[in-house]
């Protein structure tokens, strides 16, 4: 297998010309999103350049401390992203969400790198990209799960009030909503597994094939990462929702959905 063609910077900039195509379509259809498209592209370029430089440095000077710091940064970002999408979370719910994301992401990553791949946990080349894929998907899953939970609770305010007045225990009352939200959160991951390999070659596999890995090896990694992602998303949404909903009522079984200002 040949190694990947190195992109030289001048040729690389050609890809940005494609954005002009997007801009003209936006203009033509009068969709007023040109600014956000340019802002998003600029941000992406900057963020990826930075992480490229940092990763290059870390790979050249591998030290477990760097790996730990990078992981901590990743988890923090993922957690705060979930908070910013779900502003009404109360303090205890936030702690539970943060703990669920950190625990499930780290646990599955350790299992993957140390047991399945058999690499050292101090090896940034494995730990960082795998954690990144797990964290990214977890962030989306938990956000979706928590958002769905709150939305359902809002939509079902009359049902909640009626059942509460009837003397139904809060766990009984909340469980159907928790179940429905978990389903919503993990379904996209399960659906991806169904379509994978037919319509699209997933990112990780594409990357490995481009850089010269045998497709058969790339497939093993892809299968492993998909199962790892599914597990992480499932564990983190389960933790967030199953323990989180208990923060929505007090000892007197009074329901308080929103954080007190």
């Amino acid at each position, binding site marked *: 297998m040949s190694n990947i063609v190195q992109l030289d910077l001048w040729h690389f900039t050609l890809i940005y010309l494609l954005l002009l195509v997007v801009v003209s379509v936006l203009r033509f259809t009068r969709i007023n999103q040109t600014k956000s498209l340019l802002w998003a592209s600029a941000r992406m370029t900057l963020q990826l350049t930075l992480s490229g430089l940092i990763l290059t440095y870390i790979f050249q000077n591998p030290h477990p401390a760097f790996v730990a710091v990078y992981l901590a940064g990743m988890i923090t970002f993922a957690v705060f992203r979930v908070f910013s999408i779900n502003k009404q979370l109360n303090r205890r719910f936030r702690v539970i969400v943060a703990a669920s994301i950190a625990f499930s992401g780290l646990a599955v990553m350790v299992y993957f790198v140390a047991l399945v791949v058999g690499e050292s946990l101090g090896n940034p080349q494995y730990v960082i990209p795998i954690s990144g894929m797990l964290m990214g998907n977890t962030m989306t899953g938990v956000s979706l799960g928590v958002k769905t939970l709150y939305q359902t609770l809002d939509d079902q305010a009359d049902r909640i009030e009626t059942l509460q007045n009837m003397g139904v225990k809060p766990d009984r009352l909340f469980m159907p909503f928790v179940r429905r939200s978990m389903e919503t959160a993990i379904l996209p991951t399960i659906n991806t597994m169904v379509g994978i390999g037919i319509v699209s070659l997933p990112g990780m596999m594409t990357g490995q094939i481009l850089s010269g890995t045998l497709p058969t090896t790339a497939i093993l990694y892809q299968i492993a990462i998909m199962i790892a992602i599914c597990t992480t998303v499932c564990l983190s949404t389960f933790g967030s929702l199953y323990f989180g909903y208990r923060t929505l009522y007090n000892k007197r*079984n009074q329901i308080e959905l929103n954080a007190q200002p």
Partner: protein
Amino acid sequence: MPAIITATNLRFLDKLRFPDIRVEQGSATFICGESGTGKTTLLKMFNATATPAEGRILFGGQDIAEMDTIALRRQVLLAGQKVYLFDDTIRGNFEQFYAYRGETCIGTDEMAGYLRLCCIEFPLSTRCQPLSGGEKQRVFLAVHLSMKPKVLMLDEPTAALDKKTAKRMLSQMKEHCADNGITLVVVSHDPALVGAFADAVIPLTEEACE
């Protein structure tokens, strides 16, 4: 008649102050007053879904602040203003509500009996979603009535009903409650209903609020 609920020095948040209250066992007590005087809040404090900032509420002589709230809510049952029914048949609704409470559902004859009491003699296989607001409200009340609480609190139970049906339903409900030792506490805006059915009236006034 002994009191089943008494309340003294009640205050909710900083906004609402309540007169001292005494609800006699087996009576039909109406709570009256304009909007914003705390009628619904009072019912919510009686079943401990809201907590007073000050004051004490006794149910059967026991301070409700020390009672298990789930058990309290089953004995002091509130049929709230907002009607909720599952997207199911009338029978399905009875079954689901009882299942949520972890109780065995009542039988078919008993269900039909409670529906008759609430002036809604529809077959149990009727789906609830297409029912009118007033019909839903009556099914909703029938489910609550069937749960045999010690105190049944109704918040605007006739809001969606015409006058004639409202009178007939309340009169049947009152008779049933009196026969079965159930105390009724009703919030109502309608002076005609208060005049016809109230054994006692708790007036909540603007003066009562700060």
